[in-house]
């Protein structure tokens, strides 16, 4: 940088501004000194200048990277705190699975869970979403480095979806799929925990009805924290990718 100023100073001094230059003695004098000196001392000055610049630039980069990583960590923590505040899935549920065995929220701690609320009399949406869920879990199973993900189905139609109904229903999907039901109060409690909307429609002559409900697949972490959700438009590939990312980052936060 000093070199540049010397050149500029020389040009300026050489021109019409000679009188002004004389009023600023230090700069031209220093330039004459370095110009007048031997070639090796000029090269030395250049080398030290380069070294200083590199060190300065390097430390700038390192500082910037440190700040960037800190920011990423802080953002991750903020998001986690936000999710905790929303506190979906913080409660406990106690339901029966398709073999009649009682399962509570506690049973699923330590496992990654993909959770879907639906009902067995569903015309198309629930089978499609459960197919997608099953394929996603199968795809995740292929990776030996990942922990096994638990697919979970909770009914929003406890009046009709009893234990035998669930046992029949799960046969069409992933072998590890667990389906849960219970009394209307128990089911409502679980649904409320995830702020699931469910509303049974009018019954027809057969007593058949359709339950309008939130269509979402929830991702729950091993410490029972709701981490993410996937709607109808998320493809199986996107879900697999997102779950993998969450698993990787989750480990990172614990370190």
């Amino acid at each position, binding site marked *: 940088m000093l070199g540049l100023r010397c050149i500029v100073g020389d040009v300026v001094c050489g021109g019409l501004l000679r009188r002004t230059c004389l009023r600023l003695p230090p700069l031209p004098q220093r330039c004459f000194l370095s110009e007048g000196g031997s070639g090796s001392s000029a090269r030395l000055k250049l080398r030290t200048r380069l070294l200083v610049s590199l060190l300065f630039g390097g430390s700038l980069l390192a500082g910037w990277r440190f700040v960037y990583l800190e920011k990423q960590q802080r953002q991750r923590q903020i998001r986690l705190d936000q999710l905790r505040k929303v506190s979906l899935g913080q409660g406990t549920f106690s339901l029966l699975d398709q073999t009649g065995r009682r399962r509570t929220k506690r049973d699923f701690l330590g496992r990654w869970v993909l959770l879907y609320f639906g009902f067995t*009399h569903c*015309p*198309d949406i629930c089978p499609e979403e459960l197919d997608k869920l099953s394929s996603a879990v199968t795809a995740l199973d292929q990776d030996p480095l990942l922990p096994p993900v638990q697919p979970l189905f909770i009914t929003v139609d406890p009046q009709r979806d009893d234990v035998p109904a669930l046992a*029949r*229903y799960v046969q069409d999907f992933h072998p590890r799929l667990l389906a849960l039901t219970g009394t209307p109060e128990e089911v409502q409690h679980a649904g409320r925990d995830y702020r699931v909307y469910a509303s049974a429609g009018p019954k*027809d002559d*057969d007593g*058949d*009805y*359709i339950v309008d409900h939130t269509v979402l697949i929830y991702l729950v972490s091993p410490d029972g924290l709701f981490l993410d959700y996937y709607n109808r438009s998320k493809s199986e590939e996107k879900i697999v990718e997102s779950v993998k990312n969450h698993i990787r980052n989750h480990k990172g936060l614990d370190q």
Partner: protein
Amino acid sequence: MSAPNSSERKACWDSRDLLWKCLDDNGDRAESCLKFQGEFESNCPAQWVKYFSKRRDYLQYKAKMETEGFKPAEGPKQPS
């Protein structure tokens, strides 16, 4: 009355798709597709027939919105 299993669901969906294809080919004229309508209604629970009919109306409406655009309803005429 238990819920349809996987093969029953598929039978219902297939007959629905045949009906819808017939309707698409015949400009939505129900009279031309009575046979498919009958198949569809016998393969699917009554609730599903209603549900899928509404779904077809919705899908057609959605397609119309995407191609022709949205025309807001005319409000009350303002006095000039």
